[in-house]
């Protein structure tokens, strides 16, 4: 029982460390790294459920009778591509944020936005 579930528990720890980075860290690149870790760990979860003890890679051969399950592999191939697509787009946003805000720290960006909003609202009240 313990050995059978151990894999999953470690994978959960990995997923959660990714999620923790995303929420707790203010640096935008670090957030994207967190997302990558989170997603990659979900991939590990999928792939480990596909494993059959004593099986081999699902490439058909006359001498082999037990194969691991190919379907999760296919799903994760797609998911990996989705992951890199998200990362690339996120990074391009980070570049743009750096250009217009001069920083990639969440708190500093938020501060600048708040100041800007206050300014706009003040103008409105004066008018």
């Amino acid at each position, binding site marked *: 029982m313990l050995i059978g579930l151990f*894999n999953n528990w470690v994978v959960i720890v990995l997923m*959660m460390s990714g999620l*923790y980075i995303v929420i*707790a860290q203010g640096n935008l690149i670090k957030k994207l790294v967190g997302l990558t870790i989170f997603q990659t760990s979900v991939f590990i979860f999928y792939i480990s459920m596909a*494993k059959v003890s004593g099986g081999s890679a699902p490439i058909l051969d006359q001498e082999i009778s037990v194969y691991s399950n190919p379907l999760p592999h296919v799903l994760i191939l797609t998911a990996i*591509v989705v992951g890199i*697509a998200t*990362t690339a787009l996120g990074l391009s946003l980070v*570049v743009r944020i750096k250009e217009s805000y001069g920083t990639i720290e969440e708190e500093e960006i938020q501060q600048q936005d708040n100041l800007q909003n206050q300014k706009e609202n003040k103008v409105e009240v004066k008018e």
Partner: protein
Amino acid sequence: MINIVLLSLLVVVAIGIIRMKDLFAVVMLTGIYGLLSASFFVAMDAVDVAFTEAAVGAGISTLLMLVVITMTGRKEKATRHKPFAALFVVVITGGLLVYGTLDMPLFGSADAPIHNHVAPRYLNDSMQEIGIPNVVTSVLASYRAFDTFGEVVVIFTAGIGVLAMLFAHRRREEDEKLAAINDSMHEKHLVIRIVTKMLIPFILLFALYVQFHGDYGPGGGFQAGVIFSSAIVLYAMLFGLSAARRVVNQGFIQLMAAFGVLCYGCVGIASLLNGGNFFDYNVLSNDPVAGQHLGILLIEWGVGVTVASIMIIIFFSFAGRREIQQYVEQNKNKESV
């Protein structure tokens, strides 16, 4: 045993990433994380996935992050806002997941539902129905071809999105000045340049091998596309972006990206016109298995072409943006002097 070692290493790397403040180190660790998970996938018999994860996790995404760090700075501020809120969310989510694992089929057991429903058909009948030994390729290119089509569209979307974010029109004179900056920068690495020049043909050849060998072993359009683009990226890194742009210009590469998606879709349209359902390759030829082969060949081409062009587009967009930033900064420095 090996998987326990790999998983423990992954945990160590994850903790390292949480604690590190130097973004360069964080990005390198992320690359290592990708590589370790790729090794884990090999231990789990998922060779195709491992190949892709190695190319993407340890390759492309690390490279892109490094390029971005050169633009945004590599030091992270020490602020760590809301660690308790984060810890709270993580503990709840993780707790729920652990709770969920309690009724799961045990690791590796052959009588789990997933091994007894749907999947057996792929393993037992795909040889007759599709006729290629790599079951993963059969499933992704035929049984679930539409998912893979979606995947190509996802990567296409990301490429266009990155272009929409970072693309900047340049005038020719600017282009020449930018090229000048680059040349001066790259002249130093003479040895690397020569070695690279010798390597590039082999990389391209390897990409073609992976493209066409996907039916028999791990590989296929996506991996081939990534490898192909890596040759171009390598060239751009060592000989300057402008030189690489002369080899593959923006208009051409956009055309190729669109062409790949269309190529994939047209296989579906062709099966419609031949009286089958969308992506029914059986109707593409008189012999169903030959039809399957033809369909898979064509769509893998579509995948390869789109992935290669989009990867190149993405890298060029980032690198191009970086050049412009450098150019602007140089001008600023000149003015201040």
